């Protein structure tokens, strides 16, 4: 009797937050799937006459073919280049020149990578390619696609590519919703690969900026390459420089044909919109998006790590250290426990890592731990980032991190720490519910990866079920020396 009563009280105490919000959102959310498999989530928020549009494509760096790393990201750039009538003065003529240009580039590539490349043939092919590229420019209306959006008051226009996904998003005054349907459907039905080879140079500058010229960028790229031997999570999303060179329009088109199919896309719209009207427009503009085959899965599994991996990058910048452990994918029962573990030990000023390393011992300028890097769809990593204070040796800091992790393995975490982490996760979910872009992003990506936007709220139930014993168990199971990769930038010995 007593236990039963306690259970009831506990239930009443914990249930409300997630149940209440889920209920509220059930009223605000309308979902529908077109015949071709394209799924829409419409979230009504009528506070202001605006709406955010978010397209989540279930493809990212992890899906790229060998030799074409970076292609998901290159395609993302191409999605801003226009359609058959936007961004061109004459598509019929332009497409012929684009095809010839790609042919010339492919021939140049073939010669370049032949066993015995002939430099005069290469020069000839390159000259031909450049001439066609120049010719193709006469048809181009520069950035017309983006200009139409901006001219109509578009806000926050952008896109991004990750290891697991590619997303495209912007907001419009909500009376212009039809414009979004028109443009979004057009760009994914009629990609043109206009200005492809100039844009690859833009992408290369992006690579130089984010990776090659940035100490943190270099460290992260090297870290993943060392941590993963088989799974594509080890490859940079922006692509290796030589793969960017080797990628052709034909490659990009194959990639598009394979992965940009309706069953692989989820769209969310949040704002001052009427669901019925959205459905009508969805059918009108997206109804004829070709159905295609379901996108193929990634089949490579990362083999078990056989021992600790370590590397350092010498340079002239101050040290930064990454410590990563192979973990599980988000569909695994331990995923939530590992998430919570990262949160418990490093989130907030009361967390162990902050309290010890930043505050008391002043070893670290910054320290953090989180689960799910570089993605979460496949077996991913539990990552710790540590930035030492001036004059603190990396060894000292690394040892201090392990001391804290060992304490957790030995059962040092308390119920208070766990409850606090749960409370903060719940509150940050609530704080995320009042902006259109965030809602659209969260609901669309959750649907795409977990099959239902409601998992956004059900996650609260899942973290409620994780116990202290679970945290201790996953710490022991995954955070072991043999399973870890340690990488750092260090100052060069002079």
């Amino acid at each position, binding site marked *: 009797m007593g236990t039963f009563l306690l259970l009831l009280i506990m239930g009443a105490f914990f249930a409300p937050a997630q149940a209440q919000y889920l209920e509220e959102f059930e009223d605000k959310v309308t979902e529908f799937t077109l015949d071709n498999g394209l799924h829409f989530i419409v979230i009504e928020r009528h*506070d*202001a*006459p*605006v709406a955010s549009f978010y397209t989540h494509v279930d493809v990212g760096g992890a899906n790229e073919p060998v030799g074409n790393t970076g292609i998901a990201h290159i395609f993302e750039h191409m999605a801003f280049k226009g359609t058959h*009538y*936007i961004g061109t003065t004459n598509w019929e003529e332009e497409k012929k020149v684009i095809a010839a240009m790609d042919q010339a580039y492919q021939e140049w590539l073939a010669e370049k990578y032949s066993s015995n490349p002939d430099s005069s043939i290469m020069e000839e092919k390159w000259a031909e390619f450049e001439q066609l590229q120049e010719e193709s*420019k006469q048809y181009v209306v*520069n*950035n017309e696609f*983006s*200009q139409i959006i*901006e*001219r109509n*008051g578009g*806000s926050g*226009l952008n896109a991004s590519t990750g290891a697991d996904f590619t997303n495209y998003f912007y*907001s419009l*005054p*909500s*009376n*212009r919703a039809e*414009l979004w349907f*028109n443009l979004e459907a057009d760009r994914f039905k009629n990609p043109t690969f206009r*200005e492809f080879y100039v*844009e*690859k140079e*833009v992408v*290369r*500058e992006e690579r*130089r*900026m984010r990776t090659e*010229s*940035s100490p943190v960028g*270099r460290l992260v790229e090297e870290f993943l390459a060392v941590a993963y031997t088989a799974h594509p999570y080890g490859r940079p999303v922006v692509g290796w420089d030589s793969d960017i060179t080797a990628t052709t329009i034909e490659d990009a088109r194959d990639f598009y044909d394979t992965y940009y199919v309706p069953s692989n896309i989820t769209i969310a719209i949040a704002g001052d919109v009427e669901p019925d009207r959205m459905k*009508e427009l969805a*059918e*009108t503009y997206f*109804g004829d998006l070709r159905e295609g085959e379901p996108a193929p899965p990634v089949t490579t599994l990362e083999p078990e790590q056989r021992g600790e991996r370590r590397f350092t990058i010498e340079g*002239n*910048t*101050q040290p930064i250290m990454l410590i990563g452990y192979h973990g599980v994918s988000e569909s695994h029962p331990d995923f939530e426990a590992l998430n919570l573990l990262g949160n418990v030990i490093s989130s*907030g*000023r009361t967390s162990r890592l902050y309290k010890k390393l930043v*505050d008391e011992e*002043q070893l670290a*300028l910054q320290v953090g731990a989180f689960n799910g890097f570089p993605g979460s769809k496949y077996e991913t990593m539990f990552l710790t980032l540590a*930035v030492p*204070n*001036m004059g603190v*040796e990396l060894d000292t800091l690394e040892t201090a991190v392990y001391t804290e992790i060992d304490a957790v393995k030995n059962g040092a975490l308390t119920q*208070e720490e766990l409850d606090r982490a749960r*409370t903060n996760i*719940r*509150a940050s979910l*609530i*704080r995320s*519910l*009042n*902006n259109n872009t965030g809602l659209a992003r969260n609901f669309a990506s959750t649907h795409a990866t977990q099959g239902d936007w409601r998992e956004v709220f059900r996650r609260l139930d899942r973290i409620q079920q994780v116990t202290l014993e679970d945290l201790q168990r996953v710490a022991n199971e995954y955070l072991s020396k043999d399973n870890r990769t340690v990488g750092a930038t260090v100052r060069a010995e*002079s």
Partner: protein
Amino acid sequence: MKRLLLFTFMVLLVLPLSAQKRYDEIEYPEMNPINMPEVEEFTLDNGVTFFLVEDHELPLINVRATIRTGELLEPASKAGLASITGDVIREGGSENYPADELNALLENRAANMSTFIGFNSGSAQLNVLKEDFDDLLPVFVDVLQNPAFPEDKIELAKTQTKSAISRRNDEQSQVGFREFSNLIYGDNSVYTRQTEYATVDNITREDMVDFHDNYFVANNMTVGIIGDFDTDEMKQKLREAFGSLPAGKETNMVFPEVDYEYPSTINFVNKENVNQSFVVLGHIGGLRENPDYPALQVMNEVLAGGFSGRLFQEVRTNLGLAYSVGGSYGANVNYPGVFRLITMTKSSTTAEAIDAILKEVKRLQEEPITQEELELTKDQFLNSLVFRYDSKSKILNERIDNEYLGLSPDAFDELVEGIKATTIEDVQRVAREYLKPEQVQILVVGNEDEIGDQLQKYGNVNKVDISIPEPPSDEEEVAGDAAQGGEWLEKMADAVIEPGTDMGPIFVESVITQQTQMGPMEITSTAITNYDDYSSERTMQTPQGEIQMKIENGGGTMSMMGQERPLPPQMATPVTNEMKRNYIAIALNKDELEAEYLGSETVDGEELEVIRIKGDVTVTYLLDAESGLPARARYSEMNPQTGQRSQAESVFSDWEVVDGVALAYTTVTYVDGEEAATQKVESHSIED
């Protein structure tokens, strides 16, 4: 006939309710009206002003206090005071809520509290679940009013600030933005002043307490509250919570004038391990209060707005020179902004990108913009206005920010009208009046070897020194006796260089045994050093091969296996300092140095006379009383590896005199108490 009819009917049935259109054929319905929320304003007797907006969407309440203070108000010698004070108010908690208790209290309820002081304003924020508001509001006000400033949190904030200083040259863009501001406002301007190790050390707890007490007063405080509450009840709670704040005096924020001469300069910062140049160019900008402000905003959009701007079109899309390109003619309310255009491009196309940007600036002056561009810009601006008011918190924040800066409430409406009225001619006129493409300052942060001589065509390249000034030595400064110091310095000088010696560069052959992580390493060295101008040439035989090092004017080069490369400042500086500290240099330049006698000290049974010598560098010598020769030297030096000061001590013995100059044939150097190197001299002579 019947069949046909049926067929037509079926087609009609399967036709979609609406048909696909071209984008330019869409007709848009009227936009729903923007709901402007009620903003309730009231002021307490002590001067705190409140702005309240109810927003019942989520069970949250947010309080944001804006405080009239800023880094602008701190003395130059204590740069960092405002920022560290802002940090420690929150980090240190109050007497009633000490840091650890405060953190647990807030985090147990998932409440966020922060305090921050920036360049020309301070802020404090509390974000809580509605049910915790009544408990936590008094805590928030107590922390704001009675911060404890505990020593340990001050120490923590100082350590973190110093660590951030040590990292400030790591990212190219950070270096670029900072050094460009220096070029525009001047090194010592309040608008660019840097926090240094030395200025952090100058900050005391008392400074922080005073800074807080001066500025965190009711008359300096504007508080915005938004969330799930009832306005009348809230007003009562605010009165109770904020009523006891001392009224204080409203801060007078004085923004110094900027004297700008429009120089044309080309500046360079060398960065290893990058393959891209961070390019920024421009000159001083303007003030917000300017009838041309709307036309300048249109100009900015045409030049560098979003995906449509000319720089994006040309430098990125057409030329493929950059991923990132942009900038604007900036205008601030209280002091002049900066006209600044920025891009990042591979080293080999640095000049090409600079030229492409300058060309677009000139084109704005030489040709009128097109009607199409003008309309695009206006449409873009007017159609996106709704996003300015798409949330209640944006509306509240804008209201408070305008109030704080002293912008009139209709400043924004005036801008809208001004933009509507802007003509093609206006844009060309302001481009001609405000932009000076022939008088820009250009800064490139990039890889010297890869860039080569591309920058020479813009003028004499000024190499910007970004080395971080070292923290002062930790030694307690004890004032010594100057008169006796001078006498001992004379005696030491005469012992090292016989009076009447005809000095010249000194040639030394020696074997140096250096302690390394891999064990001792032997280096044979021949060096010619000129202590007049601190130049030297040195050849070293090391296990890794021959290394030649050349030092002059505080810089230098090093070559190994035929590869010559410049010595980075963090290496050239200690080597130059080593020459300046040498007893021969001290003997030679004794008239320019100050010496203080610090008494005698017994080391290893020997009584030695201690003098501290100050010039460009500071060094303490322990002299043999009889001969006047130095027995030991103590000094501190920045360790380029750790970024920290190390304490070093050299012990001299086996003195030999050749050509009138005495040299210790054995020198053993200890760093932080551990033996680091031994130099055994084989011969020395004075060159003619």
